């Protein structure tokens, strides 16, 4: 019998970013006991990095907006391989979720008539992003945190989950360790919600923090759940490129929403050169029209800088490859130019983009109100993740739910900026609601002590070896390889090479050595994270090899075109009985007539 401290709750939420917090609030509101496990301190999750805003068709700035337009924008942006039901629920429910935040104390920027102000963003036909300057994610997480602490949710900070525990087919809790003393813990739960965010740390250049190691993806996969759409990675077009230590840090799309433009080293505004056919009639053909759009002219069409992220990232890559990049391998993002158009431009920029102003001033010694920024693509978001039921967010494993970035479906092949924060609150709520229902209908399971002992023993192995591999070096090598071989531009041979490389890295990861003891030891943590990174990297590579076409965040040099055959299914990855990764096609169900009509109506 194991004698690890055991904590019992009806619902355990793993991850305390926007989705996890929203799920915890909903579940505890439904009257069940909730434990919330955070990898870091509460309120520090990657959600704080979201800058631009949350998309919700409230129509405050343009009354032509409604859920139908939002739905069709999301489907178009995702290149129609989205889970249409999720896209529908998201578009319909986001406005209520945003208003709810206001009733919990969030203070959004206001319109002249005192309503929540909405800003333009890539791929959204109308101004749709509720925002607070360029720190919307902080506002979201703080609002949920400050509301949640009065709800009786038990918060476990700096606790890392090692594996999910099962009773038969069903998930009944997790094994974790608390960071300070490195001691194992068991969390028993009638339902578990994963809300662990992304996988950016699988890549060298990323906007993600150390936490984005695909924990939820790997935990779910190991527990037998399916992962879908893993080939679709969003490379955000504008990350910082200089100095080297800040490479990858995000530069919000809000810069372009406020009128920022992209230029190459020849001073040319290159985004006008390549506008995809399905966006031609929504995109302006002149610089003058683009400016009118960002300043609120309802008759103007959006500038090409506000095309979808996958496309903008590729255009930047094209300019750099053609030798028209900036000195440090990016292109120029210029917001300072708006001084030609408005009087108090520097003040306006500081007011609208305060954290961008500070970020560049402090980290790059550059004043964005006078000088263009150097930017280039950075690994930002994974569209793929745990396959869930659209309405309940339950995974393919009973008792296991997922929400937010670690769940998949809503975004299809490419996510629109601003759809992430709204995804967190729409599906966080749904996950909390349905996990609570599940918990009320099911009792606690029976723990399998042998499985717990085995997982705990495996976790301690890096201390028991007499020397071995440095986990930081393995992580670094993995990131280099994924960046080079399964990055923005992909081709078959390189990805096969990556699969072989992953095998080699797996055997190295089985030989890690960590000095010191189990007290708050980041080296140990890095060693444990490797498994998760390797699982998601393999899933990405396998799915990307199979998808022999280019779509959204997945671009194949050897198959540059879009193939309608591939629009009919999603790729799913699952652990086979033998332990290997199995890939299969899941047909996309036919859209009901009323949604087809919406797509047709919106053009």
């Amino acid at each position: 019998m194991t004698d690890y401290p055991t904590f019992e709750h009806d619902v355990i939420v793993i991850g305390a970013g926007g989705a996890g917090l929203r799920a915890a609030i909903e579940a505890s509101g439904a009257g069940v006991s909730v434990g919330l496990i955070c990898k870091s301190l509460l309120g520090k999750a990657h959600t704080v990095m979201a800058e631009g805003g949350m998309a919700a068709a409230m129509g405050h700035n343009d009354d032509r907006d409604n859920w139908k337009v939002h739905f069709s924008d999301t489907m178009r942006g995702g290149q129609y391989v989205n889970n249409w039901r999720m896209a529908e629920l998201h578009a319909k429910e986001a406005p209520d979720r945003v208003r709810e935040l206001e009733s919990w104390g969030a203070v959004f920027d206001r319109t002249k008539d005192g309503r929540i102000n909405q800003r333009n963003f890539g791929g959204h036909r109308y101004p749709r992003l509720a925002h607070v300057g360029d720190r919307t994610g902080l506002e979201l997480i703080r609002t949920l945190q400050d509301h949640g602490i009065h709800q009786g949710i038990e918060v476990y900070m700096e606790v890392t989950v090692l594996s999910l525990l099962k009773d038969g087919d069903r998930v009944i809790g997790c094994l974790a360790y608390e960071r300070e003393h490195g001691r194992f813990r068991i969390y028993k739960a009638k339902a578990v919600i994963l809300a662990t965010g992304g996988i950016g740390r699988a890549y060298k250049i990323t906007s993600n923090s150390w936490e984005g190691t695909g924990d939820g993806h790997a935990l779910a996969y190991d527990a037998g759940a399916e992962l879908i759409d893993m080939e679709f990675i969003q490379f955000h077009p504008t990350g910082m490129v200089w100095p080297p230590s800040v490479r990858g840090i995000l530069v919000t799309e809000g810069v372009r929403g406020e009128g920022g433009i992209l230029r190459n080293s020849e001073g040319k505004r290159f985004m006008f050169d390549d506008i995809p056919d399905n966006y031609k009639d929504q995109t302006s053909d002149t610089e003058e029209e683009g400016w009118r759009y960002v300043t609120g002219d309802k008759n103007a069409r959006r500038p090409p800088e506000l095309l979808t992220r996958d496309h903008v990232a590729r255009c930047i890559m094209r300019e750099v490859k053609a030798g028209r990049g900036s000195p440090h391998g990016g292109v120029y993002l210029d917001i300072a130019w708006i001084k030609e158009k408005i009087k108090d431009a520097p003040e306006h920029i500081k007011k609208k983009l305060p954290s961008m102003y500070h970020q560049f001033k402090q980290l790059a010694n550059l004043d964005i109100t006078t000088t263009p920024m150097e930017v280039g693509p950075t690994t930002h978001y994974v569209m793929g993740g745990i396959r869930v039921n659209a309405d309940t967010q339950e995974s393919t494993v009973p008792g296991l739910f997922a929400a937010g970035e670690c769940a998949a479906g809503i975004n299809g092949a490419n996510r629109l900026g601003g759809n992430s924060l709204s995804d967190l609150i729409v599906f966080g709520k749904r996950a909390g609601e349905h996990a609570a229902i599940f918990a009320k209908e099911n009792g606690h399971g029976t723990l399998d002590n042998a499985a717990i002992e085995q997982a705990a023993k495996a976790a301690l192995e890096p201390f028991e070896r007499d020397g071995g591999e440095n986990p930081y070096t393995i992580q670094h090598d993995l990131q280099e390889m994924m960046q080079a071989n399964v990055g923005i531009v992909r081709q078959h041979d390189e990805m096969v090479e990556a699969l072989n490389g992953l095998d080699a890295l797996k055997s190295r990861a089985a030989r890690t050595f960590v000095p010191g003891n189990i007290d708050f030891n980041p080296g140990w943590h890095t060693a444990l994270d490797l498994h998760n990174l390797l699982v998601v990297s393999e899933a990405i590579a396998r799915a990307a090899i199979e998808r022999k076409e280019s779509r959204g965040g997945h671009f194949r040099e050897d198959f540059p075109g879009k193939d309608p055959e591939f629009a009919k299914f999603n790729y799913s990855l699952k652990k086979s009985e033998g332990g290997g990764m199995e890939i299969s096609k899941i047909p996309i169900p036919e859209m009901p007539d009323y949604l087809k009509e919406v797509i047709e109506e919106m053009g």
Partner: protein
Amino acid sequence: MKKATFSIRRGGRETAEMVDYQTEISEGMVVLDAVHQIQAESAPDLACRWNCKAGKCGSCSAEINGMPKLMCMTRLDTIPLDQPVTIEPIRAFPPIKDLIADVSWNYEVKKRIKKFKPRAPDAEDGTWRMSQEDVDRVQEFRKCIECFLCQDVCHVLRDHNKHEEFIGPRFLVYAAALEMHPLDTEDRTGDLKDMHGIGYCNITKCCTKVCPEHITITDNAIIPLKERVVDEYYDPLKRLVRLFRKK
């Protein structure tokens, strides 16, 4: 490549020593990069907190050459490198290990502050109307990233250990954000005076100086709250009124 030496606190809750590490310096590096490099090269078990690496999450607070700062926003070219750069955890709270301090007290304090209580929605669509001018000052307070550097430099906490009686600048800013929220109907003035110890603040403005978000903590948050307390409890006329009311 140029090298620099970093003298970093190593140890647990009880005992610790300063250990020197050398690492290479490249253009644009911040202190957190140096700590990461040292972790990867020579001290894998060196504990530090960090998340966003862009000054937005407030995790990597530390004392760099004795100055409370975010490690991720402190460029090496702004500090002298001809002598060892000291890095220590923030001192107003007990150390846990290496650069990590036990900041759990802050999370307990926040729970004691009465939560947001909005008035009933009064716009036709079931929400509220607020003008930008009315939310500007609250938005300043809501920029706070909870790095607790203001708590760290506050002498009431740091030197006098009044953690039992005083909530510190961070939570006075939090209380101000609630009190000045255009929709809020709760009254926290009594608590500020009695439970939260606002009287302890003697306006030395050290907190304002170290705030990485440039929140004007003392002038915009604490002083107006102090004025509310004074108006409510020390205004002779109001005291008289209260005296009669009590009867």
